[in-house]
């Protein structure tokens, strides 16, 4: 069993077997993080470049730790301290970096499709760490991992994704991932933040959050992307909080043994109240811990021999 592609661009089109392979591998990597020496020599001599065109705390540190714990050599790049500010194009930047002999690129970019574009101009393996409003596959994989660890089986669960679905790459990857694994997925948010024809992804769509939460097992609360809210899509944040914010009162609709997830960073008091975010059913910090194991698994599985075909 192996992954069909040498890149990880998204969960769209990935099979259940491939996702299970990544989750099972991450299971073994999780144990390494609890050892006295949290490092294995597996990727010694492999050079990974973290190419971050957008700010990030969790994903970036998580990838860096995952790379270092596999003994890879890590070079980190952020757009605002580089020649990008002098006007260098993306293609020129990455081809120059590759000319210095690298093996893998982890990329985060504000434009959808950048990871795919890189596969066309580089020989390295490309891992998508979030591209525009397209996909954020490692986030969805760690969500799946966290949920599988709690419920043993993802199939049959009802997963509700609440918030800004339109601009959320996490939502898109989660929808692909959870539906592939057999969960029932519903999305809920203001109609201005709901993409056109989203129901064609095989999911239910609600504009009333109380209706959506009825009988749900897992609620994934998305971040309201304050930096993208200048276009007048929301009348006010307060109205959003009243209509869609997840508070203790709303949790009564859920099934017993429910779970609250949030991909971070949290806007406390906007999309989720602090009591809910820090409550006993919240797995937000488990998600972060599992993120390192998932990224180690992805790096390991994509790092195999050179003769692999596309």
């Amino acid at each position, binding site marked *: 069993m192996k992954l069909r592609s040498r890149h990880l661009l998204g969960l769209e089109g990935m099979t259940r077997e491939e996702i299970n392979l990544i989750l099972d591998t991450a299971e073994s*990597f999780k*144990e390494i993080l609890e050892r006295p*020496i949290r490092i*294995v*020599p597996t990727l010694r001599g492999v050079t990974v470049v973290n190419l971050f065109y957008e700010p990030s705390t969790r994903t970036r540190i998580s990838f860096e730790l995952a790379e270092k714990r596999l003994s890879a050599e890590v070079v980190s790049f952020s757009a605002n301290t580089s020649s990008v500010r002098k006007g260098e194009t993306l293609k020129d930047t990455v081809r120059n970096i590759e000319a210095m002999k690298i093996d893998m690129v982890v990329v985060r970019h504000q434009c959808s499709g950048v990871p795919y574009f890189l596969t066309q101009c580089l020989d390295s393996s490309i891992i998508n760490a979030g591209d525009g409003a397209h996909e954020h596959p490692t986030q969805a994989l760690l969500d799946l991992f966290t949920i599988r660890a709690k419920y043993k089986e993802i199939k049959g669960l009802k997963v509700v994704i609440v918030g800004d679905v339109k601009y959320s790459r996490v939502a898109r990857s989660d929808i692909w991932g959870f539906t592939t694994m057999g969960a029932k997925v519903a999305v809920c948010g203001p109609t201005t933040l709901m993409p056109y024809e989203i129901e064609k992804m095989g999911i239910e769509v609600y504009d009333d959050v109380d209706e959506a939460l009825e009988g749900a097992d897992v609620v994934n609360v998305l971040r309201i992307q304050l930096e993208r809210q200048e276009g007048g899509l929301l009348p006010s944040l307060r109205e959003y909080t009243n209509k869609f914010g997840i508070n203790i009162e709303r949790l009564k609709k859920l099934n017993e043994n429910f779970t609250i997830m949030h991909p971070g960073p949290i806007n406390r008091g906007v999309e989720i109240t602090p009591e809910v975010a820090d409550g006993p059913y919240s797995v937000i910090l488990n998600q972060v811990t599992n993120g390192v194991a998932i990224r180690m698994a992805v790096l390991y599985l994509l790092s*195999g021999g050179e003769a692999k075909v596309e």
Partner: protein
Amino acid sequence: MPKKQKSILIMDAKTVERALIRIAHEIVEKNKGAENMAVIGIKNRGEYLAQRVARLIEKIEKVQIPVGLMDITLYRDDVQTKLEQPLVQKTEILFDVVDKVIILVDDVLFTGRTIRAALDQIIDFGRPKCIQLAVLVDRGHRELPIRADYVGKNIPTAKSERVKVKIKEVDGEDNVSIVKQ
């Protein structure tokens, strides 16, 4: 057309059992007891052999012997040359290895590369007092300067032959045979 394979039985269930009992006694003799001892088996079949050896030592010495299991995939030296990444399995060493006498157990000793990986991995868990190696079969053809302290049976082989070890817990029966291609 599938190649004709010839299989020769080298050890039957009784012989395997006797070899393990002798190994357990040798371990106790060499270490003058079983104090501060722990056994670690290498996945897959070494894991079960390790459990059996530990139980036998416990019977002789009337002490508790902790048993760990180890998957050496991440310490292999051919990770980047293989076409397909081998499945990573669990490593479970739930005791402190520092200052312990570690008995490392595997089914077959061949090139020595697995043992090299296992040694590196153990040392990443801490600094044991010493590490000793017990194997059911030593088939020769070493590629590294590694030898076993306790050997169930030395079997001279050609490189093209395969040594097949069967273990009750995995294969339903205990025996060792050589398969000629």
